[in-house]
């Protein structure tokens, strides 16, 4: 089932820095890529998503860069805040299927 891979497994940045989380996938049929944010004790919540027809999606401090040819994407969090400390999951799906999740990147933002 591991069709989506994420790196690094964990990441620590200082407040104000840009955190970069990487994701790659295998199935070229995937065309929708949501990123979910999960805090301890809670279920994951959609943060931002991109469709394969786009190469960039921006929402405030969160930006997805997408490279269809290389089957890679990344989530950039600019001006990182301690409140951004969470685990981030990259997912991928297509049509009416359920998304496949990566193993997650645990982000820690130090004040």
């Amino acid at each position, binding site marked *: *089932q591991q069709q989506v891979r994420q790196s690094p497994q964990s990441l620590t940045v200082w407040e104000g820095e840009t955190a970069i989380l990487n994701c790659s996938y295998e199935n070229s049929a995937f065309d929708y890529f949501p990123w979910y944010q999960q805090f301890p004790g809670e279920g994951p919540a959609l943060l931002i998503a991109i469709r394969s027809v786009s190469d960039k999606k921006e929402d405030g401090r969160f930006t997805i860069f997408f490279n269809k040819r290389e089957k890679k994407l990344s989530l950039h969090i600019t001006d990182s805040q301690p409140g951004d400390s969470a685990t981030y999951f990259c997912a991928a799906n297509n049509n009416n299927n359920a998304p496949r999740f990566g193993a997650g990147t645990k982000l820690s933002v130090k004040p």
Partner: protein
Amino acid sequence: GALVYQYPRRTICKSGTSMRMECQAVGFQATSVAWYRQSPQKTFELIALSTVNSAIKYEQNFTQEKFPISHPNLSFSSMTVLNAYLEDRGLYLCGARSGTGPERLFFGHGTKLSVL
């Protein structure tokens, strides 16, 4: 807004017994419900995708005989873990969405299953 409730939040069952968990969608019609298991060392394992008026699609390594799912209407789904053993421990998450396209899933907090 759209919310998904799961209950119980936590449960403990004896090895070999069964445990039923429920998922309630509020504020939207849950046309599709995906059940996942999140183990401590692993990512989300997709168990099955249930779409109202369609057959439930189970993933490899998960069967209806072990994880029977009910999705009787657009606001409710339940899943039972039959004959639970240690390897079934984990956080069971329900993700629901309206429509059948790849739109966002709304997740509940999950049901944490411990097996003694």
